[in-house]
């Protein structure tokens, strides 16, 4: 038998090997040695990508989104009056950026075109090193950019997108939506419409012929038919038709007593203006006053329709006249900086920037899967919509929905809508599987 001698050298070698063996599992799972992720911030700053329509039909809405993002960046970096950070229920953000890194940003122009929006998002990720992409004013754009961010391994915090598909059949793990959707609009509007117009109504839909329009039409039909309304026709209109008179005149003698305009932006302004011109708001059919409904209102767009919005019902994600502490803080902060109140697009984008920053701070990382985990199931308050939850199953925010009406006697050009009901969250909630789709796994990229 060979002698087993232990000398000093062998002792040191053995200790080192044993130590390495014990430490290996811990070292391999620590962040220091983990695989990196797309655009992992290395220096003292972190770059966010604001992808908004700076040209095209929604440029005004995009400009308002950008103002809100700039305000959010100021507040996250500890500048200005802090806005809704003062009322936000989470106190993780300390006013020194995110995870100690100062927030800087780059911007892209979506042009409200899917291909242009993808190109600008790609540029911000690949060339500017954006760790997160956010913004937009169209569901088509949101779905396209969300897919790109999933593939690139960055988080996408959607801007104004109202189609069910964004967090329904086209949802992705890396995508999160604060804005409400058409399903919630239908659920909120249905009971209000029943109270206002009764349960024996015949509705005629004019619908923008693209993903959001179909989604909106389907939701309103579903909820109004549940209340006992009949749908006499649902006519698809081309996007940007301009003059809708040829689609409105068939409504006049159709027997319908409600016109639902599933239009947004320019189309909404034009179709509503022309429906009023054709006397529909003052018409009587079946012994009842004719009614017009615009399921998705935007204050910026309502200004374009002028006095034609008076008395017209619709829904909205948020309105500057709300009196909760969060809304008041945001309106004050935004109004003092820019001289006018923020739009719902500005509100949702401000919230998205704050929610992302807060999630990174709580997760202590910018890694998409870590940030996503911090957002999933996150319950918060103080951002203007009451108690809210980012549902884990579909990354959709659930909160109260506002039903609004065109104001009869506006006190200023901003004061065009009045909130007639705050529909509680539980009334607009639906099972995640209702809208289909699969989140799939997170992609951290790199």
């Amino acid at each position, binding site marked *: 038998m060979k002698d087993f001698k232990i000398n000093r050298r062998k002792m040191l070698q053995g200790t080192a090997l044993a130590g390495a063996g014990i430490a290996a599992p811990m070292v391999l799972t620590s962040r220091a040695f983990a695989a990196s992720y797309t655009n992992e911030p290395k220096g003292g700053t972190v770059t966010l990508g604001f992808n908004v329509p700076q*040209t*095209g*039909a*929604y*440029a*005004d809405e995009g400009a308002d989104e950008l103002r809100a993002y700039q305000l959010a960046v100021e507040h996250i970096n500890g500048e200005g009056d802090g806005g809704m950070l003062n009322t936000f229920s989470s106190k993780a953000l300390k006013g020194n950026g995110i995870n100690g890194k100062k927030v800087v940003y780059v911007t892209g122009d979506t042009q409200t075109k899917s291909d242009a929006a993808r190109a600008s998002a790609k540029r911000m990720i690949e060339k500017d090193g954006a760790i997160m992409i956010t913004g937009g004013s169209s569901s088509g754009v949101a779905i396209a950019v969300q897919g790109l961010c999933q593939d690139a391994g960055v988080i996408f915090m959607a801007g104004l997108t109202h189609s069910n598909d964004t967090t329904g059949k086209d949802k992705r793990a890396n995508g999160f939506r604060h804005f409400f959707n058409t399903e919630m609009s239908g659920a909120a509007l249905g009971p209000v419409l029943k109270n206002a117009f009764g349960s024996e109504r015949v509705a005629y839909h004019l619908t923008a012929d693209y993903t959001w329009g179909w989604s909106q039409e389907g939701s309103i039909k579903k909820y109004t038919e549940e209340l006992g309304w009949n749908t006499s*026709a649902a*006519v698809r209109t*081309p996007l*940007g038709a*301009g*003059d809708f*008179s*040829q*689609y409105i*005149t*068939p409504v*006049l*003698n159709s027997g319908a007593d409600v016109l639902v305009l599933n239009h947004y932006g*320019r189309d909404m*302004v*034009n179709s509503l*203006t*022309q429906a009023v*011109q*054709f*006397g529909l708001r003052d018409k009587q059919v079946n012994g009842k006053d004719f009614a017009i409904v615009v399921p998705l209102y935007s204050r*910026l*767009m309502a*200004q*374009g*329709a*002028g*006095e*034609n919005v008076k008395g017209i019902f619709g829904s909205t994600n948020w309105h*500057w*006249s709300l009196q909760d502490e969060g809304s*008041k803080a945001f*309106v*004050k*902060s*935004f*109004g*003092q900086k820019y*001289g006018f*109140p923020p739009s719902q697009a500005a509100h949702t984008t401000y919230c998205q920037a704050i929610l992302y920053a807060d999630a990174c701070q709580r997760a202590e990382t910018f890694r998409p899967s870590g940030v996503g985990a911090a957002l999933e199931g996150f319950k918060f308050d103080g951002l203007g919509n009451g108690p809210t939850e980012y549902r884990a199953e579909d990354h959709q925010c659930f909160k109260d929905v506002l039903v609004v009406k065109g104001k009869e006697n506006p006190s200023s050009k901003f004061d065009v809508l009045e909130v007639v009901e705050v529909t509680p969250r539980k009334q607009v909630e639906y099972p995640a599987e209702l809208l289909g789709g699969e989140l799939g796994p997170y992609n951290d990229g790199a």
Partner: protein
Amino acid sequence: MDAIVLQILNGLDKGGAYALIALGLTIIFGTLGVVNFAHGALFMLGAFCAVTVKALLSLEKVALDPTQTTAWGTPLEIRTPYVEAWFGDFGTAMLNYSVPISILIAIPVMLLIGVSMERGLIRFFYKRPHAEQILVTFGLAIVLQEIVKSLFGANPIPQPAPDAAKGMIDFGVAIGFQAGNVVYPAWRLIYFLFSVAIIGGVFAFLQFTTFGMVVRAGMADRETVGLLGIDIDRRFTIVFGMAAVVAGLAGAMYTPILSPDYHMGMDFLVLSFVVVVVGGMGSLGGAVVAGFTLGILQSFASMNEVKDILPGIDQIIIYLIAVVILLTRPRGLMGRKGVMEH
């Protein structure tokens, strides 16, 4: 039957706009030989004449009320339009009639814009290929619409018709229908009559004045008219200005129907070119006939009964008709031999 009458009326007011724009395009093409892709922008600029007039009439005296504050904490602004403060009820009436007033302003403004465009840019492209004319005028159109967007924003700006013209007219009673079955917005009927009047005026001007005779002669044979010692270029400059005025008036009057935004010219431009081609390049009568015809057919194609049989036909009808016309009558409905054939 009432639905058909309503769609004819729709087609007539829409066709009125097409015809007015196409008329200007045809005049410019027939006289100067220029394919003017900036013509839609002239329609848009006319509409923004109405917006500007209303904005000027709405200029407000701002007083701060320290006893009240806005939602963001600044003193509330009490705004009163100067015209109301200075002229009382007359000022209110001026605001109410801002669109008709803008017609008067649009005439000299559009004439100036048209003449400046022709002298400053278009004349350098008379002898250049059509492709270059299209490129430069299209570029000009984009520049003009971006200027308008930077000044007025991207959102549509409402321009209400005067209160007296806001109601509906029971058109059906006049043609034997039951009361209430064929009612139509008064302003749209006014627009149709306005477009007929402008078209009539342009034809009369070209037909019954010496200036018009020279222009028509120039359209037929520019070289010979020049050899007769007539300064045809100067007349053609005025013709370009006149076409700009026609497009501008069409745009200003259209604002209560379609809230103007910076892109409205492009929306009408393509359709108006189709109208010109269907009517026959260089044919004034053809442009008018094709404008109204395509407007009416587009309206009919949007009827549910038609779309049930041919889904989506409303979106392609104009182009479909253009294809059919060009296959059967390559020079268009009323095109002249020799135009665009060399």
